[in-house]
């Protein structure tokens, strides 16, 4: 177990190196000059030159990368070209908000997929099973921004039940429980819809598989109560792939919630990256991508660890 963890951790820097190289290459290969964008067309050549020098943009590409990575190793991700803030400060501000939103999305996905997946498997080919199938198909087919717009229209504009924006705003943070958390509801549902569909489908099929196993017959032959049979004997087995998938998906969500953050004006990682891309704010793009990659990797390793923890047959 520990040696496996060690081997996995050794891979992390390698993956990050590749990620950083690719992000660097992509930022530099995309047309658009950050200095022109930041300072505008009319700026003096001196100011432009000074900025280029400050951010090493006057150097060759390998040099730029080398200088950047050397600083990264000391924990310094540089400064934003546009905001003049340290990238690490920006991350410290925005990562918690993104994590909260991703957690809310995952929470929604779990709250729906666990009961739905279990009941659909127990009542195979019943109306609730068909409902579950229909729901998962929709979850896969409707893009999250589409769902976001529908939810906004229905629950915010028509019914006026839920706020559209407010995540991370000082007003919401100062307010009570409802004021604080209600802005999360619609974005969380929109963000988690794909994961809900995925996890429901996975749990349904793994439950169906488990229910047909011989040990379930043994459990019934013992005269155990149905709740005990379903929760302890079936769910404990069916949860193994489910938990793993949920952890991987959680890592993935942080990276893909850009659109949702943008739509709901969430001051998180995603909207910051989007702005950085628009402005060619190289240090922010590179730093944020690296952090998202780290998070994704950590969740993946955690998923494997959980797999081993839940399944006594697995020993790495």
């Amino acid at each position, binding site marked *: 177990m520990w040696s496996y963890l060690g081997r996995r951790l050794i891979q992390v820097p390698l993956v990050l190196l590749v990620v950083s190289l690719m992000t660097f290459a992509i930022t530099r290969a995309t047309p658009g000059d950050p200095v022109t964008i930041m300072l505008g067309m009319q700026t003096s050549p001196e100011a432009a030159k000074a900025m280029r020098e400050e951010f090493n943009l006057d150097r060759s590409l390998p040099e730029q990368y080398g200088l950047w990575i050397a600083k990264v190793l000391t924990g310094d991700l540089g400064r934003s070209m546009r905001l003049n803030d340290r990238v690490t400060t920006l991350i410290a501000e925005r990562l918690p908000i993104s994590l909260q939103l991703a957690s809310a999305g995952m929470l929604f996905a779990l709250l729906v997929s666990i009961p739905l997946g279990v009941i659909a498997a127990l009542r195979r080919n019943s109306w609730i099973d068909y409902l579950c199938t229909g729901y998962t198909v929709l979850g896969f087919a409707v893009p999250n921004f589409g769902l976001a717009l529908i939810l906004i229209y229905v629950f915010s504009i028509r019914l006026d039940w839920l706020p559209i924006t407010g995540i991370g705003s000082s007003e919401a943070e100062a307010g009570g429980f409802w004021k604080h958390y209600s802005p999360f509801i619609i974005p969380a549902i929109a963000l988690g819809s794909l994961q809900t569909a995925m996890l429901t489908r996975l749990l349904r099929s793994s439950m169906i598989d488990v229910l047909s*196993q*011989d*040990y379930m*017959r*043994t*459990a*019934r*032959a*013992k*005269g*155990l*109560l149905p709740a*005990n049979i379903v929760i*302890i*004997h079936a769910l*404990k*087995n069916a949860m*193994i792939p489910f938990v793993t998938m949920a952890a991987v998906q959680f890592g993935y969500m942080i990276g893909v919630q850009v659109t949702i953050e943008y739509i709901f004006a969430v001051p998180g990682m995603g909207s910051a990256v989007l702005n950085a891309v628009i402005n060619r704010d190289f240090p922010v793009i590179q730093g944020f991508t690296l952090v998202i990659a780290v998070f994704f990797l950590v969740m993946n390793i955690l998923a494997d660890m959980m797999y081993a923890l*839940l*399944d*006594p*047959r697995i020993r790495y």
Partner: protein
Amino acid sequence: MTLLRVRNLRTRFATDRGDVRAVNGVSFDLAEGEILGLVGESGSGKSVTAMSIMRLVPEPPGHVAADSLAFDGRELLQLSEAQMREERGSSMAMVFQDPMRSLNPVLTIGRQILEVLRRHQKLDGPAAKRRAIELLETVGIPSAEKRLGAYPHQFSGGMRQRVMIAIALSCNPRLLIADEATTALDVTIQAQIIDLVKRLTRERGTSVIWISHDLGVVAGLCDRVNVMYAGNVVESGPIRELFHRPSHGYTLGLMGSTPRVDGVGVRRLTPIEGVPPNLIEPIKLCPFLPRCRVSVPACQATPPERRDLGGGHWAACLADLAPRSVAR
């Protein structure tokens, strides 16, 4: 006293190709403290008979019907699922055929034993643990205390089989159904388990249905034996009677011997040729007829009735094999 009465038990499974009549009119009585053997080829309906008694046949696709299926005077088919749950694992217990897959892989052995004790005997804490250790020792698992925390995959097939037996015995059932319970075990352990079963019937009056392919084990353990073919009992009798005077063409085939006309048996081990009938098609004549070596012209005309051979021995066979015996 009769513990279990089975009359015209019929279990079928709905499939795409039609209804499979897996058990088709089984009748027998099981007395208290009696060990009844159930033998027959693969697919003859032994496990389904057992599962029908326990009411563990999944419905659908299965369907169980009987004129009577009475356990201790109560009609099992009339009990609710909740009432059945009180009996299963407690007064009636079953050891399943496949030990490798009958234990839950993510729960410890200890937990899988303790949960039955908790459920039916309200036994908890150290007392339950002591009982679990005692049970594991009874079935011959060494250093039982340490094994409680182990998972099934850390056990061999034989050990798992013994755990299954320990679980089945945990609440002192009045009826124990053992489906190939010793098949995965080596000879020494097998002998231990057989001794244990004999002791249980003697000391506690436990009734046992012992399903096995191994006629040797059946002969050494059982009081009576039912020979099953194509979902029905074709011959039944006390063990000595039946082995001494097999009176059904199929039983003869099972014993791997063919009687000669002069009545002196020869011991020639021959597998029965041919395949069992398709259980979807209705069977009108003797189901064994196409494979039978001792059939008589009457077999082509009428289905065989139970023929009483005295001493509780009967066979559903038209060929008169009674005077002949098989040398063993």
